[in-house]
């Protein structure tokens, strides 16, 4: 399958953080699931995840895949959003030595990667430290 088709299929999650909320037990799954892991129900309501959270853990990538070489070193983190949902994403707009567990972050819309000079541009979410 081409990259553009796979990217397109994930747009609701990558652009709008659309998650699935189980109509049986209320558990929220991101990315959405077909079957609730908690109660086994197959009906879900679409909900948008909150855009605030805090860093639960992170790691620093110093030897990245080729599309990300110009950004190294950069951090990948697990973000605990305000509603408790965990989100794995890049943490942008900071040098890795500024980061700490528990740091408040905001989710912003960013460019994730380009499929070379002539290919599509892939957009999505990244966490950005809140420094107010």
């Amino acid at each position, binding site marked *: 399958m081409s990259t553009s088709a796979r990217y397109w299929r994930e*747009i609701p999650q990558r*652009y*709008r953080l659309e998650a699935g909320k189980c109509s049986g037990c209320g558990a929220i799954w991101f990315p959405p699931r077909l079957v609730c892991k908690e109660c086994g129900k197959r009906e879900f309501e679409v909900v*948008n995840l909150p855009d605030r959270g805090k860093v639960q853990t992170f790691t620093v990538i110093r030897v990245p895949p080729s599309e990300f070489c*110009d*950004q190294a070193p950069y951090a990948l983190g697990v973000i605990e959003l305000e509603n408790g949902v965990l989100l794995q994403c890049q943490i*942008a*707009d900071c040098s890795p030595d500024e980061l700490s567990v528990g740091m408040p972050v905001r989710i*912003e*819309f*960013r*460019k*994730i990667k380009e499929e070379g000079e002539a290919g*599509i*541009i892939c*957009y999505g979410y*990244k966490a950005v430290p809140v*420094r*107010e």
Partner: protein
Amino acid sequence: MAGIVGYGAYAPRYRIKVEEIAKVWGTDAESYKRGLRLEEKSVPGLDQDVITMSVEAARNALKRARIDPKKIGAVYIGSESHPYAVKPSGTVVGEAIGATPDVHCADFEFACKAGTEGMFVALGLIEAGKMEYALAIGADTSQGAPSDALEYSTAAGAAAFIFGTKDVIAEVTHTFSYMTDTPDFWRREYMHYPRHAGRFTGAPAYFKHIKGAAKAIMEISGKKPEDFAHVVFHQPNGKFPTTVGKQLGFKPQQLETGLLCPRLGNTYSGSSPMGLTAVLDVAKPGEEILMVSYGSGAGSDAFIYRITEKITEVQGLAPKTTDYLDRNKVYIDYGTYAKLRKKIRMGE
């Protein structure tokens, strides 16, 4: 009456000072600081472009408008740095804010006037009753060739406005547009950087069109310069808007709030729209605001806004424009700037 129901701005956190650029090219930084009133400019990160900044500005506008994005009938983005040559920016932004699929999208381009061009069309659709809400955005990651005078000012930022007729915060009481064919600044297909005609960008271009639009809109509205609490002109540098304001009879205090260029740079299509967001952040009910854009090639769109009682309810619902300008910024050297702006030729 139709007008703005929500607004928002966005600027990246990276900044480069005029001194840092002047050091590389052996020029006199003081002449740019004094002569053009430029101090520093914003620079987009590697993962930021017109689309990402437009989404953030639009999300701020939605927070203030407090509306269901599905009710937005049009998404218009004015820019001269759309990320794709062929593939709209508007569909990505519309999708990201949740306005798709029942929406009309278009990308506008008219040098630095593309943002107000979108605002003009969005307002017209609302006035015509074609839709409930329309979103217009002015955004750019402006290009300037290395060592060119433009390099000291070309910056990155976005401003978004949602137009409607319910819970309006700034009514648009008058509009006027003034256009001629004037080759003062251009970029040909496949060219990386724009070219300009030096001093010709002044009197027959910027000043003629701004004054033409400003004088005409004041005449049709019966307003005088002293009737406006704030005035926002296009800001290619800090000097031009100050000079044109003086020539039109405005006092420096009327320009102060919306004059962002000295510490932001020229965000091209985002320039006067971002100035307007800074004014809306502090505007009081009953105040009147004059805004005149300028785009090379050439033309100006002028708008008169009257602030309503609703403004105070929404000003604090999203980050203020000065928050993006003054907080959280980080200064970079020219090497980092060259990398972020992709001015370095890489190996295959």
